[in-house]
């Protein structure tokens, strides 16, 4: 402690401040470059058709709100509210499924004793690394045999079976940090494992559950591959799929409406980010450290 105190007083002050200013300046420039694609998206979504191709200015000459009106009409005669509802249904189902199934499995791994716990835990960790594609085709065949292709079941059901091991791991790490005395006390008061879980552990695990819920929502919302292979009917499409067919169906002149729809599709994520950024950043930070 004393060493730094003397060291920092020995260094003349001005260069330090200048250095700090340079870092801030560098960060600001980097930030502008980083945010450019988002600014471009917002600007283009408001540009009239002739400006999109002809004009090099970032800002639109006049604001073409009708792009959004066109976007709200949707794609393939399916209104955007329907698409939004489909996306919300899938993401919402995934959130509920992940939170329930992952917290149940995590409690067993973190707190209960059972045979094969070591090997099963190792297996669970290994599935985090497992490429999705290795299981995708047979999963597709299974759902196909069950007649569930072109329904939402293949997108939601797996989440109720704790297939996203990353979240199991995240919650296990969090539960391990809770003092064991809590459950000892609960057991003395006559609580079995079920009551200890629901009344003692689960309420304390809330931050990890919120992190799980937010990440599940955003990842499911952004997901493209699974939706692409399982959903065919335009009226079952999500916003992501509709955006893609928008690209196929339209020429450059429909740029404005297409990007207006892109903005609408990103809006929930932006709102989630603004509302929960602390949980998101902390959750991401802790996932790498405790592992």
């Amino acid at each position, binding site marked *: 402690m004393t060493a730094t105190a003397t060291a920092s007083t020995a260094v003349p002050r001005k260069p330090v401040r200048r250095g700090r200013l340079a870092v801030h300046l560098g960060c600001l420039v980097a930030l502008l470059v980083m945010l450019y694609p988002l600014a471009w998206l917002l600007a283009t979504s408001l540009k009239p058709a002739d400006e999109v191709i002809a004009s090099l200015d970032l800002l639109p000459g006049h604001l073409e709100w009708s792009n959004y009106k066109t976007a709200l009409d949707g794609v393939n005669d399916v209104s955007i509210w329907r698409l939004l509802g489909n996306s919300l249904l899938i993401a919402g189902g995934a959130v509920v499924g992940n939170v329930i199934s992952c917290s149940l499995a995590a409690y067993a791994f973190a707190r209960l004793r059972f045979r094969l716990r070591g090997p099963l835990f190792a297996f669970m960790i290994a599935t985090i*690394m497992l490429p999705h594609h290795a299981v995708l085709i047979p999963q597709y*065949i299974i759902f196909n045999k069950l007649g569930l292709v072109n329904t939402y079941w293949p997108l939601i059901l797996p989440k109720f079976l704790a297939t996203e091991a990353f979240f199991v791991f995240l919650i296990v790490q969090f539960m391990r940090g809770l003092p064991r005395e809590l459950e000892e006390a609960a057991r003395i008061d*006559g609580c079995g494992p079920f009551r200890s879980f629901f009344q003692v552990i689960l309420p304390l695990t809330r931050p990890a559950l919120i992190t799980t819920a937010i990440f599940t929502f955003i990842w499911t919302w952004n997901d493209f591959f699974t939706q692409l292979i399982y959903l065919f009917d335009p009226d079952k499409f999500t916003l992501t799929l509709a955006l893609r067919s928008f690209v196929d169906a339209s020429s450059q002149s429909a740029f404005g409406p297409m990007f207006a729809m892109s903005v609408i599709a990103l809006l929930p*994520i932006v709102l989630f980010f603004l509302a929960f950024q602390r949980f998101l950043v902390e959750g991401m930070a802790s996932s790498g450290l405790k592992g």
Partner: protein
Amino acid sequence: MTTTDIPAPTARPPRTATLPKRRPKREREGAAWVFLSPWVLGAIVLTLLPMAVSLYLSFTDYDLFNAPHWVGLRNYTQMFTEDPRYWRSVTTTLTYVVIAVPLQLALALGVALALKNMRRGKGFYRSAFYAPSLLGASMSIALVWRAIFNDGGTVDNLLGTGGWINKPGWSLLAVALLTVWQFGAPMVIFLAGLQQIPAELYEAAAVDGAGKWRQFVSVTVPMLSPVLFFNLVLQTIQAFQVFTPAFAVSGGKGGPADSTLVYTLYLYDRGFVASHMGYASAMAWVLLIVIGVVTAVLFRTSRAWVFYASEGER
């Protein structure tokens, strides 16, 4: 960890009369399996069984409608010896991984180091740089990328290189830059790791006369190496499976001239467009094995350069 193992009840006055008996071991074990049951069901039905089935299918011809027809190793021999597009997808993916992952991690580490000692605005920058990690995987941003890097797009106007999207030599770089743009997630992990390095180490190094660079090499790098390793493994595994940006940039075709035909895109094309499910299964198993080998190699080499403070010198 060790303190929590001290049995609390012994410290209390004896209450054996009211204390319920410890539940029998078997009953408690049963409770564990109840909690685990969704996970166990998922692991069997949605992971292990599909893996076994796809291994079987990789030795068959299967188009989803007719019964699988056993062909032995033909899918594999065809893949390795007769299918130039397969090799194209392999080299494309490897090129992509080698460009995107180091660039992304270097940027993440650089920004984390710049933010580490910042007094004001650290939280703001951290959140702002993190935001693209959440948005970048979306179709919306992939479409923006396609437009910005297209002929007449921003990059064309700025550099005069023409659009990258339509140039076979450049299109993959545009896809890789979208990954680099999402450096926020590893950056946040780096930053958290940097903040856990005890300040005493830097103080001791400064007392011994170590300059900034020396401190970075002798304190920061070894102390951060586990986090660096974690990020490297995670980003590499994810990079091998890139799909959405390559799909969006090329309209699902992997063009121009197969230059953005990454492995998973070709797998999708074989399995779900051309209905060669057996061939696609073989591709999936090769991917699984390659990712397993790469991860194992990373773990093996990590012994030489990853330093775990709790284990002392290795």
